[in-house]
């Protein structure tokens, strides 16, 4: 009921605004071109996110960090492929490096970037823009620039040295990871006002997902070594985006034989479409849940 009333008010308000605008236009007897721009611009409001995104991307491009990241990825992939000679081995070692580096860089870079664009965010918040749109522009700006870095730094060498299904899955998975960790980074940055604490929090997240979680998982598996653990292992892997990414890429090779029963189960699952669907679903949860939480925090934030 309240919502309906509210919606009605809003519509009245908007209708009123249109009246005022056309009123102005006729009162000032603007040229046809100018009246056209006024009517056109109303539909243009929808592109607000894109317009903001343009400025965020331009700003990120000025930052050297993304360039260094691209160069680092290029150097590493070219180096690994030319050293190992074997494409499969190359992909496997590249996988380990990418799983270590891309979450770390996505987290730290995004957190620092968010804190540094505080003035920009403050300025935008006083403009007629939804807070949600402001945060989305930051999120997509960061994602797009980091994914472009991955596509250039990782995609090109993979295409040259090892064009295969495994290579494609490595690229897609690292893009997914980037999106999930940018989202976690924004959450970390919104959880605390203090820049140092925010960066500390994202470092902690990285430690947790890279080392602590795996250690815990190993401990649990070791403790219950006599019991069937397939389902539990699968669940635990899904609860860590980095592990999930690793399994998806590894299963594109025939290495599951080394992974025992669980490996066989995973192989079975991921060789069918169901497994891929499941993995993408879990990855999407990792991307959107932290982002939604971050938006909720940002809406309540005092600037």
């Amino acid at each position, binding site marked *: 009921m309240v919502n309906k009333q*509210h919606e009605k*008010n*809003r519509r009245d*308000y*908007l209708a009123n605004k249109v009246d*005022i*605008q056309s009123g*102005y*236009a006729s009162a*000032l007897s603007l040229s046809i071109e100018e009246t056209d721009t*006024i009517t056109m*611009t*109303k539909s*243009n*409001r929808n592109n*607000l996110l894109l*317009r*903001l995104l343009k*400025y965020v991307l331009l*700003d990120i491009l*000025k930052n050297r960090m993304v360039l260094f990241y691209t160069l680092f990825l290029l150097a590493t992939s070219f180096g690994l492929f030319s050293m190992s000679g074997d494409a499969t081995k190359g992909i496997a070692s590249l996988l380990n490096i990418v799983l270590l580096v891309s979450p770390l860089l996505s987290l730290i870079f995004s957190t620092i970037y968010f804190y540094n*664009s*505080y*003035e*920009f965010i*403050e*300025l*935008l*918040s*006083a*403009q*007629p*823009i*939804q*807070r949600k749109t402001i945060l989305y522009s930051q999120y997509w700006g960061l994602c797009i620039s980091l994914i472009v870095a991955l596509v250039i730094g990782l995609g090109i060498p993979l295409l040259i040295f090892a064009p295969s299904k495994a290579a494609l899955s490595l690229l897609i998975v690292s893009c997914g990871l980037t999106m999930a960790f940018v989202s976690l980074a924004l959450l970390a940055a919104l959880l605390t006002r203090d820049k140092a604490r925010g960066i500390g929090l994202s470092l902690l997240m990285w430690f947790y997902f890279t080392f602590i979680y795996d250690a815990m998982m190993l401990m649990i598996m070791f403790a219950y070594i006599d019991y069937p653990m397939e389902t539990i292992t699968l669940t635990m892997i899904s609860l860590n985006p980095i592990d999930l990414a690793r399994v998806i890429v590894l299963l594109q090779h025939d290495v599951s034989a080394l992974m025992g029963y669980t490996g066989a189960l995973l192989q079975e699952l991921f060789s069918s479409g169901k497994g891929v669907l499941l993995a993408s679903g879990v990855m999407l949860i990792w991307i959107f849940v932290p982002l939604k939480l971050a938006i909720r925090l940002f*809406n*309540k*934030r*005092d*600037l």
Partner: protein
Amino acid sequence: MIELNNISKSFGKTKVLDQLHLELLKGQSIALIGPNGSGKTTLIKSLLGLVVPSTGDIHINGINTKGTWLHRSNIGYMPQIGRYPDNITVMQLFEMIKEIRIGTYSKLDEELFHSFNIFKFENKTMRSLSGGMRQKVSACLAFMFNPEILILDEPTAGLDPISSEILKEKVKKELNKGKLVLITSHILSDLEELTDEIIYLNEGKIVFFKKVEELKAETESGNLSKAIARIMEMQNTAA
């Protein structure tokens, strides 16, 4: 035009705004005064939605502002300290804001842009601007989109005498068009020139909301500074 119902805001344990009720109408020009830390800026920021009040709601033109954003196209806001992205130039800043606000305004008002001679430093980056230059930029942006409501937080602080005259003339001009103007300042002579009503805020509460004339008559003083000084004295002795 602006209606505040039972607005409270706390930052941690400190209560900054304490159950405020307020109604401001079109054509009013209001001075918001009070000692440092009395909640002036917080009140202004709540109107814009930059600060989210703990309780109560704010209606602007009859629309509850909670969670909405379009009401901001009706407000020109000049912040106390204009903070802008460091690396963009003045020109880029104007272009950007204009582009973002496309569709929310009918005509641009670039009068201040010309009278402040902004084009003289339009290619400088925001980082390299002095405090006064920033103030000028903030003022231009506040007036640029012809808003119905103008909220100016310490507008003349940091401006040189000539620029501050230009700004005051501009405010008077907008007042004559029947806009609602809300100004905070510690320079009472400026306020006397521009406003005819005073809201006195102390510790998050409205002590009084009166016409300047009334205030002068009550305190039997010839100008605003003396009247306010008298009231502050009276408050101190009462406390």
